[in-house]
């Protein structure tokens, strides 16, 4: 034991100093942390949308992963069939997915508010199956590559690691989206209506606020966030009909850990669990799929209401 310890100690200080941490090359460590941060960005954006929808509608949107996939696919199809590039898609995709979400809310979800919230979960589960099934039927299960926009191609050498520009952009963009949504809800008049309606919809309605419209807009906003996450993800992951369904379950675990009481909590938990996953990939790759769920189980044992949660 001592000999091994000394050997690693000496390699640490001979030659390339500072390139190993706990016997792991710094490059690999930072690389996986970046991957973790990217995943965390998507966890954060999706759990944020789930929290916004749940806050007002009391519905867990199982279709969130499907809407994310829907967004990525619309972006891909617009590029292939209409020649609409990444930057216009960044605006158009959330609009399309948002309008689709509003239509779903008007036609179906609005009929479920008086019922047990579990019916909302079951309905959106069915919706997710249909959306996924349609894309699977027409496009198969294989992934379709979406090219990184030319402005963000290539990478930057940060001295300690090589950062692909697009990945840096995803992290920045997701931070902007998360902070923007947080500001919208906490600091604007519309956001104050939304928060008030979360607390007491009847009273807000009595003050002359159109609560049903607010519900529709909220679901639309949540859907648009999922669509935006989808188009941001398209150049990172392959665009495939299955990209949403596995992700949504991890995001559910994120939501359980963070608790849905706070928007900020959802965002912070998303990034933290993404990083935890990235780090696990370095030290114990076999467990990287499991780590988010293990953290969820530990949080449930120690703090059942979630890290930021008020128990619902």
């Amino acid at each position: 034991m001592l000999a091994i310890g000394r050997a690693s100690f000496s390699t640490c200080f001979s030659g390339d100093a500072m390139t190993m941490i706990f016997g792991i090359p710094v490059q690999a460590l930072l690389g996986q942390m970046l991957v973790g941060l990217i995943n965390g960005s998507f966890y954060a954006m999706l759990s944020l949308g789930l929290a916004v929808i749940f806050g007002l509608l009391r519905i867990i949107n199982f279709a969130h992963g499907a809407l994310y996939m829907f967004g990525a696919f619309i972006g891909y199809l617009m590029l292939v069939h209409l020649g609409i590039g990444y930057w216009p898609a960044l605006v158009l995709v959330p609009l399309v997915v948002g309008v689709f979400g509003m239509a779903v809310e008007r036609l179906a979800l609005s009929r479920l508010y008086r019922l047990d919230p579990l019916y909302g979960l079951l309905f959106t589960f069915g919706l997710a199956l249909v959306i996924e099934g349609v894309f699977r039927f027409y496009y198969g299960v294989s992934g379709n590559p979406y090219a990184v926009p030319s402005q963000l191609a290539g990478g930057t050498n940060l001295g300690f690691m090589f950062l692909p520009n697009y990945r840096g952009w995803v992290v920045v963009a997701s931070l902007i989206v998360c902070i923007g949504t947080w500001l919208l809800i906490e600091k604007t008049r519309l956001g104050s209506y939304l928060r008030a309606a979360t607390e007491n919809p009847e009273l807000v309605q009595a003050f002359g606020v159109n609560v049903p419209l607010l519900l529709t807009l909220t679901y639309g906003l949540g859907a648009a966030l999922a669509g935006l996450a989808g188009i941001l993800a398209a150049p990172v992951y392959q665009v495939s009909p299955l990209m949403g369904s596995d992700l949504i379950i991890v995001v559910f675990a994120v939501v359980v850990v963070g608790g849905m009481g706070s928007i900020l909590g959802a965002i912070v938990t998303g990034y933290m669990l993404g990083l935890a996953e990235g780090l696990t990939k370095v030290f114990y790759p076999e467990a990287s799929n499991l780590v988010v769920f293990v953290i969820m189980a530990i949080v449930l044992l120690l703090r059942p209401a979630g890290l930021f949660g008020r128990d619902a």
Partner: protein
Amino acid sequence: MSEATLHEERTAASVRLERVLIALAILALIAAPFFVYPIFLMKMLCFALFACAFNLLLGYTGLLSFGHATFYGAAAYFCAYAVKDWGWPPEAGILLGTAGAAVLGLVMGFLAIRRQGIYFSMITLALAQMFYFFCVQAPFTEGEDGIQGVPRGHLFGIVDLNVTLNMYFFVLAVFLIGVFAVWRIVNSPFGMILRSIRENENRAISLGYSVGRYKLAAFVMSAALAGLAGATKAIVFQFATLTDVTWQMSGEVILMTLLGGIGTMVGPVVGAGLVVGLENTLATSGFPVTIATGLIFMICVLVFRRGIVGEIYARWLSPGGGRNGA
């Protein structure tokens, strides 16, 4: 779920009618393998027991588990492994699968009952996904191939299960025992407490019941019975694969229960028959099963929340008759 399940006060006539129908149904199941493809019937019976076990939790305790595939699939793995690699007889394999599912149910239930309502469902889903990833990596599940070529063997060392009819009547017996167990649990004092938790958890707490323990007990029983179904399935089809532990499988059992009627004894059986039949039909038509499943989910939730059997009870067999239906 209370809105869909409030049809327990029934007339004496409806109870008598129900008994006659159940007797007829059992006779039909005994005669069925002589007319219908037995493998299809056995698949249906396994799923029907699975759905009944699930309904014990959703319909009578009000807990929506999105992770029941874990118990079904895990029991299939345990049973298949014990029978194939250790050479255990089929009945021992099935008992091992059932016990294993109960242990997993204890662990998952212990974690999940710490939160209520929608969180409970999300936790069960997440833990089931964790178990799925575990199965993908664990060596004993043989990965993508699954455990194949499980021998059916001889039941109690005497009855040769390779004979299709023997196998069928064994599955039918397991199914009837399982459903009878659900019926006994639901109609026992214990079952009444479960219903009171479903209707009003806070009131049950204030009456002095330790609700958590009752929920956990119901969860373990439901898991064990789901395991019984899964282990039996492994013997019938002679394999255990990853398909049985996916979240799609958890969704399927929810669909069967919802379609047939949440909180009815017969509903899940009817639902399982319809879903398995539909899947068999669609398999040859080329129309994707996921789309059909998703559409049925949406339609059921929007217009048909009591399910088929639940609607029949509400319209024709409840004291109010058709007046307060729909």
